[in-house]
């Protein structure tokens, strides 16, 4: 690790980050406004509701990330969880040889 730079990089400056976030929010607002200005061709009915795609994107994203976060404590193990297993299974026959 080298010394931290005196001047933060472009994407670490607060104004840049805030501009980017504002840009995303602005685009989202524009896309929501666009709902009034194009002809929908729903296949199922519900996909023609106002704001269906924006809502689907937002809710689906939150659902995935948050449910994965909930699942993490169940699934996560130490990094060498399997390495130990592998080492043991490599050593098992050797141990047996010495025992018998």
């Amino acid at each position, binding site marked *: 690790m080298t010394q931290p730079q005196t001047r933060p990089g472009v994407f670490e400056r607060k104004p840049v980050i805030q501009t980017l976030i504002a840009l*995303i*929010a602005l685009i989202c607002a524009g*896309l929501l406004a666009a709902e009034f200005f194009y002809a929908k061709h729903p296949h199922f009915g519900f996909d023609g509701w106002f704001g269906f*795609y924006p809502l689907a994107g937002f809710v689906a994203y939150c659902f995935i990330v948050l449910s994965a976060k909930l699942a993490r404590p169940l699934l996560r*193990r130490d990094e060498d969880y399997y390495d130990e297993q*592998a080492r043991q299974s490599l050593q098992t026959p050797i141990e047996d040889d010495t025992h018998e």
Partner: protein
Amino acid sequence: MSDWLGHALASPALVLMLGALLIAALPRWLHGVWLLTIPAAALALLWQLPMGEYGQLSLFGFDLTTLRVDGLSRIWATIFLIAAFLTGLYALHVNDRLQHVAALAYAGAAVGAVLAGDLVTLFIFWEATAIASVFLIWAQRTIKAHIVGLRYLVIQVISGLLLMMGAIIHYHATGSIAFNHLGLATPGGLLIFAAFGIKAAFPLLHNWVQDAYPEATVSGTVILSIYTTKLAIYSLARGYAGTEALITIGAIMTIFPIFFAVIENDLRRVLAYSLNNQLGFMVVGIGIGTPLALNGAAAHAFAHILYKGLLFMSMGAVLYRVGTVKASELGGLYKSMPWTAAFCIVGSMSISAFPLFSGFVTKSMILTAAAENHHWIAWMAMLVASAGVLDHSGIKVPFFSFFHHDAGFRVREAPLNMLLAMGATAALCIGIGVYPAPLYAILPFDVDYSPYTTTHVVNQLQLLMFAALAFVVLFRSGLYPPEVRGVNLDTDWLYRAALPAAGRAIHRGVSALRAGLVRGLAQLAGVAQHWLTEGFGTNGVAARTWTSGVMLLWVTALLAAYLLIYY
């Protein structure tokens, strides 16, 4: 048509395999030229062949069709050969003969398999892909890679054996080895379906992908990500188009790897989960089975090989320079590797299916086909999965490696050949997205489809931008799960932990039983020995000397008893 065209020996697959053999003998400085010219020559040869069946030869009493060029096989062989060229360029700097030989042989086997017109030829090349590809893992030359490679090979060979058994049963039932539509109605068809399912990484059969791919070499992982799974997708499209079960299987495949991708720390493993999820879209397309859906599956496989390859290339470049691709360790690399970062973002935009990028013009065909055929559950699953793709491949991979907080790595930009390979692949991703007509022209079916309608572009942008907004909200509020070190349990736990543990338990049990038995027998033997010694030993009853008076008494007693009994 020239005389030599169409002979089994003039196959693009054999060109690659012969090239692999020659590279094993050529001096190092020729490898680079060879890695690029061989795939180019094979591609030229493929496109010289008119549609039709060639390369007939007899083997084991079967009449094989080693070369079948039609819409379906040609697009797959084409993208395999383009990918072979790009990965050759990417691996140009690698000073390892083994990897170059394995890469070309593997590509040759995969091309041979998609061009196979019969099940026997398919089986031969199917196994060849397994054997050639494992060397890309073993080329890491570590104990871990050795173990992972063995595990990978076992699973690949099981798939091959299922294919062989299925083909034999199919041959006995139908008298034909032709590789056409098979269906699930026959036992042979079911076995072959399982064989394809393993290589296509169906849910619960999937974990070899995430286990093995991230353990291969820098260029090996890129190469592995291209062929095996897409060969299986091709095989499903050939043998099981329109099989309803595939819609369900594919829909599950699009969803469940996402959760693992979100919490995985190794970014090459994140991409392996993401690969799995992209295969799901293709499997749904094959399950729907209409010309539009099959075109969608083929086009998506084509685009997917490029953008997934590009993402693996960028993470490979990071691994090559930094030495790790763990999200928890990385950050701020855009300063050191700006070009790699830019190419990675192109790959991310493509896989997320932003308009003007390749994923948009291909994935939309499958979604449209699902909607037109009223599969609303599969359609919703794919919609949710699309938001998930934006997270793990669209945001997580570039954000945590190139941006986020600066982890302090000051490394050099990727080598020139890697940059050229990434640049060319990125150009193709954008090219397909901006101008999809040439790709649509080589699809298996003639279908009139235009992705750039106002509705479609607006809806897709709404979905993606609001998902991106959700990331901003979750990340700023601290709800986004942090990147932490660790491994996540998946189905491989069954054969990496549970099965060995069960084996050890059984071993211990049997040993204890054996020890108990031996102890018991020894005790028994001790008792018997003691009893025998008492009776017949030197001081035993039988060995004692007796006086003649006592013997006389006994003889008299016996005679008296004798008399008494017969009286």
